[in-house]
């Protein structure tokens, strides 16, 4: 399929168009993540933003990074976050106040930071730009990974193992250690006693779901890299 070299009427190159569209998607998605009232929508917009970012990686000639972006961020982390969202949504629903009371200060800081960064970027004389020709070939990346960066690779694997163990340990439900967990619990209940079956059954129903949810998600991540 033959496309014109430039976009009709505008005279832009297609790459430019793609860039602008992706930039709009990414920044728009990010803004929606940050200001969205509904936390689940925030998560979905984050996926959109990540996807646009993957497009940038392709545009920048790093397909392996783009693939990893899709697999890890969209496939694992976003899903993990969505699970967490579902686990932590209280019955009260989304909070009335999305923002912290210091949001105005955060906004000032963020704007200041942005203008500072833009200023720095614009005022810096970057090294000669070679252009799009230098794509990071997958083979070259793989060779580099297992030769020069092999130590870092191993360290990262150890880090991920530690993260798996830490995640399991943190999210693991400690039996009857936190009295807030069991509604209507008598405070005189012994620590080592197994919790009695509640009449409404709510704690006992929620418990396996939480444990399995977090455990499953952590294992799902750990398999990934």
């Amino acid at each position: 399929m033959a496309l014109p070299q430039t976009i009709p009427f505008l005279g832009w190159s297609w790459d430019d168009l793609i860039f602008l569209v992706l930039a709009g998607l990414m920044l728009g998605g990010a803004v929606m993540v940050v200001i969205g009232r509904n936390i689940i929508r925030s998560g979905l917009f984050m996926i959109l933003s990540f996807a646009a970012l993957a497009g940038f990686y392709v545009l920048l000639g790093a397909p392996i990074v783009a693939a990893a972006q899709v697999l890890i961020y969209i496939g694992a982390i976003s899903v993990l976050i969505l699970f967490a969202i579902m686990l932590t949504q209280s019955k009260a629903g989304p909070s009335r106040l999305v923002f912290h009371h210091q949001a105005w200060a955060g906004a000032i800081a963020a704007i200041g930071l942005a203008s500072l960064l833009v200023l720095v970027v614009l005022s810096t004389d970057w090294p000669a730009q070679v252009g799009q020709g230098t794509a990071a070939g997958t083979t070259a990346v793989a060779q580099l990974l297992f030769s020069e960066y092999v130590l870092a690779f191993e360290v990262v694997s150890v880090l991920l193992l530690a993260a798996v163990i830490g995640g399991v340990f943190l999210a693991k439900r400690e039996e009857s250690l936190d009295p807030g967990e069991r509604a209507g619990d008598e405070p005189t209940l012994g620590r080592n006693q197994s919790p009695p079956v509640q009449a409404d059954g709510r704690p006992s129903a929620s418990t396996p779901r939480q444990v399995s949810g977090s455990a499953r998600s952590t294992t799902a991540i750990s398999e990934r890299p």
Partner: protein
Amino acid sequence: MPFFTEAPETVATAGSSLDQALVLALLALPLAGFGLTALVGRRMGDKAWAIAVPAIVLVWLAALYLIFQTLVAGAYGEAGLHFRLYEWIPAGDFTVEVDFGVDALTAVMLIVVTTVGMLVHVYSIGYMAHDPGRWRFFAYLNFFMFSMLLLVLADNFLLLFVAWELVGLSSYLLIGFWYRRRSAALAAKKAFIVNRAGDFGFGLGIMAIWTTVGTLDYSDVFQLLPAQVESGAIEGWQMTGICLLLFAGAIGKSAQFPLHVWLPDAMEGPTPVSALIHAATMVNAGVYLVARANPLFAQSPEALLVVALVGTFTCVMAAAIAFTQKDIKRVLAYSTLSQLGYMFMALGVGAFVPAIFHLVTHGFFKGLLFLGSGSVIHAVHEEQDMDRMGGLWRRIGITHVTMLIGSLAIAGIPPLAGFFSKDEILGESFKLGFGWVWAIGIIVAVMTALYMFRLMGKTFYGPSNVDPHTEPRIHESPISMTGPLMLLAVPSVLIGFALGWPPESGLIHQWLAPVFHPLEEALHHGAADYQLLGIDGFLLGASVAVSAVGMVVAWRLFGFLSTMAPRPALVASLTARLNGPYRISRDKWYFDDLNHLLFVRVGGAVARALWWFDVHVIDGAVNGVASLTQGTGHGLRQIQTGRVQNYALGIAGGLLVIAVGYLFIVAR
């Protein structure tokens, strides 16, 4: 005895180790008596005296031996017996030893201290027989004896100062013996605090001596300081300063103007205490100090003039106040002040031997008078107001006779003790060129006779004003009380003649001549011959005459034996005519009120101001630091919200500040 360290060369060693042991026994016995009585006295019940009194009797015997050895046998030579018990403070250049010395002056002091002390102890057996706290009394009394003996035996200034404070402490304890009585507790406090003012000066004087000559040993100081004055190493005014500082201690302890106010109040203590401490011994410590430091005072005529002025003023003032007091013990207290004034007067004009002579005689007859007043008070059941006495002379005969002897002695009627010593003081002051001192002394002699026989008249003669309830129960005191009275009456009669005859060359002059040798030398006193038919006879006659006049006037006004009836109407009209002086005298020249104004009102205001300053500025600064820290912490705590995002905002802000700062300040 290996117990004693070898005395160094500078300390003359005379006397056997037996003598040294006896000197130590003088101190150890009362101290042991104090300790034992304090420990077991409570269980001894009415035999609480059984340790204390024998201890003092033994002390008296030991002292008699030492006095004999020193004064009569001359076993220790002119310098006296000096030895070292141990080195107390060996601190680099500063060494203070526990040295004891017995020379003629100490021996003369020992006569008074141990004799009166022993008799007062015996007297107390009867006087305190019914007091539940008598074991405490005897313990304190022994403690006082220890302190007083240490005071006269000490051979350097620091040990003297320690003893000085110890007698002050025992005086405090004994004045406040009946501590449940508010007035007694207040009087004890007053005595202690007023004494502190003098002791402060004394302490400064001792420090000045040390910084000047680097030693506190009597013999060294008395050689080095005058030598330094002569060589010009220290100025005359420094010498005067040292003397006046020492004299400040003497003023406090001997209750001279302006620190005299504590002594009359000290009469709140039991009467034996008044007799022993506040008449015969402790109040003489000031006189002893000045006499002991005579080589220093000899270098400073200005200081001696101050001594004379203070003594003279106290002498007149106290005698004037004694006229109008109603409390029998207060009259005697002011009389004591007045007689101490005489002594300082004598010291001030340079007549040191008469001063010590008067100290001795006064110790005996004033002790006698106080003990007699105690017997009177005992007889009329603890009544001290002379307006509620009268006509007692037939009822308590022994007390009356002994007190009459004492009164005649103090009034200066020959040949009793007071006559000799007082006459010497007056005669010497006149002959040494202090005519004004002599004139005032003569006036005071009249006043002395007058107030003493006013006391006698109101107490013993005329109609009885005793409370009708106690009237039938008036009784003579037990033998343990009248015995000491009679024993004291003997020296009150004889000691003047024994020591002071012939005038100006009697025994006491021979004894004390070596002690005051440096003074005589420095002041260049001519040794004028005593002319009984010349100037001396005239002076003697004058003093006897005025005393007799005063005595007779008092007899006419207040009665005497059965021959003269008191004339209260005449007294009243005189009082009315002399209302102004009467009121001043009755109100003790307003010194208490002046002190109240000065130290309680003004001093209180100053103290309150300082207190305010302390609370608001000093404490305020301290508390301010604390509350500043607290406030800062409280403020900073607000930052510690515990909310991650607040911290993150801080990080973001900090990042911004650093980056902007780097870009616009450093990178430029």
